[in-house]
């Protein structure tokens, strides 16, 4: 797995807190996403991943803390930032009764993509779904829909890409294709990707850096390999389960550092 040297920070969350009826869904959450990096957000259901993602997309306003993209404050430069970013989620859809090309053309125009028809053809080819061009979006399979959604997310050649569980409900073959596409996008566009998933294979294969969330707090972070080693676990899935059940994990490295004179 390529591990690019961290460069320019393109997305930053500083001490982000988000409360819902007195419960902290995010608690002083901080993050730095570099250009060319794939950063994975992990955690059990309710850990705060989606809230973090929604705050970063400007869909939910944080209770306190700051959010910056390309060095600019998110809320006051929202449109400017969104033109350079894009998003795809397993939980959203494109209008079902439109044809694939119609949906993509609308978003290409919204993002002011030059030569939209050519760009759409290029992306459909990249995703190996050129044959779906004139198909009704609502009649696509889950795997086809995911790839069409990814086409939408890549229309504007985003510098910042937020992917929310892009392989959810996909079979292993299509999930593998999607992972390869994500890596290809990263290397071709040199964009920063924020990635959430419950699929540990995804995470190990795609992400350079991971952040484990529990009850809105970052409880562990590092490279996938590093995290497994530090937690004396055999797999990333073990780490996930330990954190989800116990809420914390013994960081062996930190322990050794404490003991050392």
């Amino acid at each position, binding site marked *: 797995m390529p591990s690019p040297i961290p460069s320019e920070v393109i997305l930053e969350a500083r001490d982000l807190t988000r409360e819902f009826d007195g419960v902290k869904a995010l608690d002083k959450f901080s993050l730095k996403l570099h250009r060319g990096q794939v950063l994975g957000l992990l955690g059990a259901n309710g850990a705060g991943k989606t809230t973090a993602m929604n705050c970063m997309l400007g*869909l*939910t306003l944080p209770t306190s803390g700051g959010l910056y993209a390309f060095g600019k404050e998110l809320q006051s430069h929202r449109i400017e930032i969104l033109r350079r970013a894009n*998003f795809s989620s397993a939980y*959203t859809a494109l*209008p079902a*009764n*439109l044809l694939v090309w119609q949906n993509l053309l609308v*978003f290409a125009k919204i993002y002011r993509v030059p030569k939209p028809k050519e760009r759409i053809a290029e992306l459909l080819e990249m995703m190996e779904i050129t044959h779906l061009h004139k198909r009704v979006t609502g009649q696509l399979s889950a795997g086809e829909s995911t790839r069409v959604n990814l086409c939408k997310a890549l229309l504007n050649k985003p510098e910042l890409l937020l992917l929310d569980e892009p392989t959810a409900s996909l079979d292993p073959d299509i999930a593998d294709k999607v992972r390869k596409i994500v890596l290809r996008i990263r290397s071709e566009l040199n964009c920063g990707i924020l990635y959430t998933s419950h699929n540990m294979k995804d995470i190990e294969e795609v992400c350079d850096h991971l952040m484990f969330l529990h009850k809105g707090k970052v409880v562990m972070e590092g490279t996938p390999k590093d995290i497994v080693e530090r937690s004396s676990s055999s797999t990333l899935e073990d780490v996930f389960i330990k954190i989800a059940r116990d809420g914390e994990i013994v960081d062996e490295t930190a322990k050794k550092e404490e003991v050392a004179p």
Partner: protein
Amino acid sequence: MSLHVIQALVLRYLFLYTRSPMRLIELIFWPVVELVIWGYLTLFIQENTTGDFPRIIVFLLGAMILWDVIFRAQQGVAISFLEDVWTRNLLNVFVAPVRTVEYLAATFCVGFLRILVTVTVLGLVAGLMYAFNIFTLGWALLPFFMNLMVSGWALGMISTALILRWGQAAESLAWAVPFFIQPFIAVFYPVSAIKPEWVQTISWALPPTHVFEGMREVLKTGVFAWDKFFWAAGLNIIFLTAAGMVFFYMLTLTRRRGLLTKFATQ
């Protein structure tokens, strides 16, 4: 405000309508049914009474068509928003570089297009079946249409704001809101018929009342009621601004409470 973005959003609605004949039928079916029923009723009364009824049929059919202008404009805003909710596309739009005013402007355009389709069909049906010429109102038709369309947009923003606030459980408001004011805006009867009299004060505070009273005046005297036009336009500016503020407030509240994503992915 970017015209490109508005154009793209309108294009999406055009694709939606052209891809779904049922949507087009819905635009025409109910207004035509209403028009036919009202038309037959007034013809029946006309044949069985004497006096001023030829004018009354013109009033009723004119009112019927103009009421649809408000309703279709309101639907243009509210239903366009619901289309995004139903298709789970709302998040894609809200995380795209689309300003709220651009989104609203696109729904206003959809409202305008819906009016064009409905009024053209109603005008043709009224002309063919009842020899009612919608242009009896002459040039007065245009400023009246504009005023009613703006009232419809304002009602559309209020409906959408309420749906944003209370979620999909409040969807029926997309159809109900115009009917909350219908009894008070003197669509089919003059303001003087509204009782008790203090309710008339409420009626005069609503912009469409001035349009419907103005329409009756044009049909009766042939003179354009400028005072009614300016009252309607002035009140419309106030109503549209207030509705816009309510919409922006509700949208901010929804974002602050984190309800937008839950609502959009339900």
